[in-house]
């Protein structure tokens, strides 16, 4: 199993996580994914990459560092994103009742192990 697959598996094992993807933030493309049926990975990758990129610009403009972790909360669930090395970002799509705290820990640890 590759490091990317391992990272995705760790995140998807967290209760309430509907899927996870490793994306390239510059391109907004999927590098690897593990998603439940009905989730459009391509759309999640493109929009999450755009979100992370824009937040990076906003924080940069404010003289702050790029966020290491992003939590976008909606009525039907959340999108979590953890920035890894280079331009890789680990993204998770989670239910409203998901264990976000554990997902956050797993994601930050998993991206730390990505080459």
């Amino acid at each position, binding site marked *: 199993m590759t490091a990317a697959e391992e990272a995705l598996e760790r995140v998807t094992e967290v209760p309430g996580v509907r899927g996870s993807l490793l*994306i390239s933030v510059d391109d*907004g*493309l999927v590098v690897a994914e593990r998603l439940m049926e009905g989730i459009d990975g391509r759309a999640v990758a*493109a929009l999450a*990459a*755009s979100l992370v990129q824009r937040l990076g610009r906003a924080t940069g403009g404010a003289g702050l560092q790029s966020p290491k972790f992003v939590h976008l909360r909606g009525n039907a669930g959340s999108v979590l994103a953890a920035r890894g090395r280079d331009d890789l970002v680990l993204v998770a799509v989670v239910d409203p009742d998901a264990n976000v705290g554990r997902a956050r820990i797993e994601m930050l640890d998993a991206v730390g192990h990505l080459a």
Partner: protein
Amino acid sequence: MRALEPWVVAPLQTFITESSARLILLMTTSGQVVAQHGFSRSLDVMTASALGAAIVASTEELARIMGASRFGAVVHGGSRQSCMLAAFGTPRGRWIGLVVFGSETSVGIVQLFFDKMVEELVGAAPKEQPPALLLAENFEHELDTSLKELFGR
């Protein structure tokens, strides 16, 4: 933005807004321009459409030789701006989209909203038969009229 057919305008406008693309050109596979946004000179449009149609024809032939189905899109990544070329089917025949975009957006976003635009174009296309093919003797006049519509002069 300029379009030869009014039903193209809304899907194209949505795509431009959502994708943050800098330039877009919609054309037929023979290189006839259907709509454009961002180009300021007719010569650029004519050159880009001819080259775009030729690239798509070349890649489709390459795919055929390789025994693959058609390539979905061709993306040329650049340091300051990139270009995506993709052919798609419409009730009016096969069209090509040429999109130029910069670092303010990404290839993922462009592809995502391009596909949505294609769906909207297919849904918005009038059901009646496409206009008759241009006759050789009318070609110059039709080309001139099209360019005037595309550039508003």
